[in-house]
């Protein structure tokens, strides 16, 4: 194959953001990760905090509603805002 295949990753701003001072993922909490219907959130093990890993948000809000410390905020994705 003379031409080298090459992937480009598109940048996007996560509509779900975390107040890390409130997030208690380091205490073992995974509520927001558990309830996301589309499985978009994850725990950053180096920080012990939740974050949005994939940009496929349905802005449905269980992550925000069910977070025990009020650390999660859901914005409407930019394309729909």
């Amino acid at each position, binding site marked *: 194959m003379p031409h080298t*295949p090459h*992937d480009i990753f598109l940048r996007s701003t996560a509509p779900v953001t975390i107040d890390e001072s409130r997030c208690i993922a380091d205490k073992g909490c995974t509520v927001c990760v*558990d*309830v*996301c*219907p*589309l*499985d978009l959130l994850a725990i950053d093990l180096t920080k012990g905090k939740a974050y949005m*890993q*994939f940009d*496929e*948000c*349905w*802005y*449905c*809000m*269980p992550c925000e*509603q*069910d977070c025990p410390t009020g650390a999660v905020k*859901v*914005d*409407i*994705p930019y*394309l*729909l*805002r």
Partner: protein
Amino acid sequence: MLDKTGDAMTTEVLEYDIVVVGGGTAGPMAAVKAKEHDPSLKVLLLEKANVKRSGAISMGMDGLNNAVIPGHATPEQYTREITIANDGIVDQRTVHAYATHSFKTIEQLDRWGVKFEKDGNGDFAVKKVHHMGSYVLPMPEGHDIKKILYRQLKRARIEITNRIVVTRVLTDAQGRACGVLGFDCRTAQFYVVRAKAVILSCGAAGRLGLPASGYLMGTYENPTNAGDGYAMAYHAGAALANLECFQINPLIKDYNGPACAYVTGPLGGFTANGNGERFIECDYWSGQMMWEFYQELQSGNGPVFLKLDHLADETIQTIEQILHTNERPSRGRFHAGRGTDYRRHMVEMHISEIGFCSGHSASGVYVDEHARTTVPGLYAAGDMAAVPHNYMLGAFTYGWFAGEHAAQDVAGREHAPVDREQVRAEQARVLAPLSRERGLAPSQVEYKLRRFVNDYLQPPKVTRKMEIGLQRFAEIAEDIGAIKASHPHELMRAAEVQAIRDCAEMAARASLFRTESRWGLYHHRVDYPQRDDAQWFCHTDLYKDGAGNMSSKKRAVEPYIVPLAKEEQSAYESLRIRGKEALEEVAH
């Protein structure tokens, strides 16, 4: 972990009496009722997301749209209303079975702790939204419904496995369903679940058309409901009914959630045109209503709005309280971002992309009054099962029917031997994208596929366009063979693209088969603009024929058990509010 052929080193094999696929609305009810019927049964509930917050009602629901409550409506009246709203093409047995059981389901939910609106005397506060009868029962605190269901699942000791993407129904040598195949969306672990009966409750095909925003997940339906159930039922050999009766909904533009005229209507809100005038008599979602909506959107009076700005402040506060905490609670945030205040502004609306959903229209897997599909041992319930206009309460009720009947059906039955070839072929098919070193991104293939769905299938339907669509969908099938998944999450999206493609082909073929127009906008064919009762007063069934081809056939509408009066039959055809001149003409 994977070798070159896509075979995982390990495969998890599980054995249950009944497996339920989908833990949204119908699924939990099916699992609980199967177990209540026979507590010795091993029942597994599989869910692609997490049962705590999954399916169409992940954030609750603001009301029942089709409550048949003694003193307000009768099963016969409801059956008539749905028959008329669906242009006569219904299997009345299934609608009547729902209607007869409707109140029992409400009482069950009431006992479980679901709060319905009641009047001063403690009676259910039923509202009128449909054209003829009264069936709407508000649930102002409906945001708790998933928690209530979860408690019942735990109490009934239902086993639950979350994050499993089920991709095929396993069948035995006689063609009976004998389990399901799938994988874990976090580890790609492949699962074989053997079962004596399978209940599919996988929701609508809500990721078929592309939203006008271009945003893949900006769908009306929960995007997890990608049509997996429709594709699985088809490949298992089940018949699918009236798929050409698409789901198209009137929604808040861009946000793509319901404007909820059912909630606002009884409080004085209504659908208005650009001049702020009412143009339809009834906001109940039917094909005819969508036709009028579409006409208004395209006309000089467009676009269309939800009008609340004439209401008192207290009323608007009540509306905000319901709509901004239930079903799609981020709606308040969307309005705030656009500076829309119900007190001063109308809310701009448009029509949705297409989908399949029997909860709102009539497109689904054929089921009888026990929720049985045409495949022995395979049941379907909820949005994916063809009981027209069934909504949430119909999903609960048919989940109940499915669970109870499956429990009886598996009594004394042995597990069928597993067909190793089916398992091997499916494992290779679904895991292949993980083993490719290079390839297309699932999201790009999905985007292109769903854009073609809009380009070629969105009504008004044109024969030649749908034929071109079929060519494009065949090309997408080749692209799917070149998808690369970088991780198990992408593998889930790759599997969904395949289900969406199958649904797109079904939508095109079903639409081409019915050479007439029916159900208002849902099946308006520009080159066959008239309703043709002589040829097409029948159901259409789409199925995989003996040669593996997608085929369609007519199925007669069984004699009505609730006859219609002549003057009732056209009630839904006269939804448009007539101008003064037209009314005077009628008067003379």
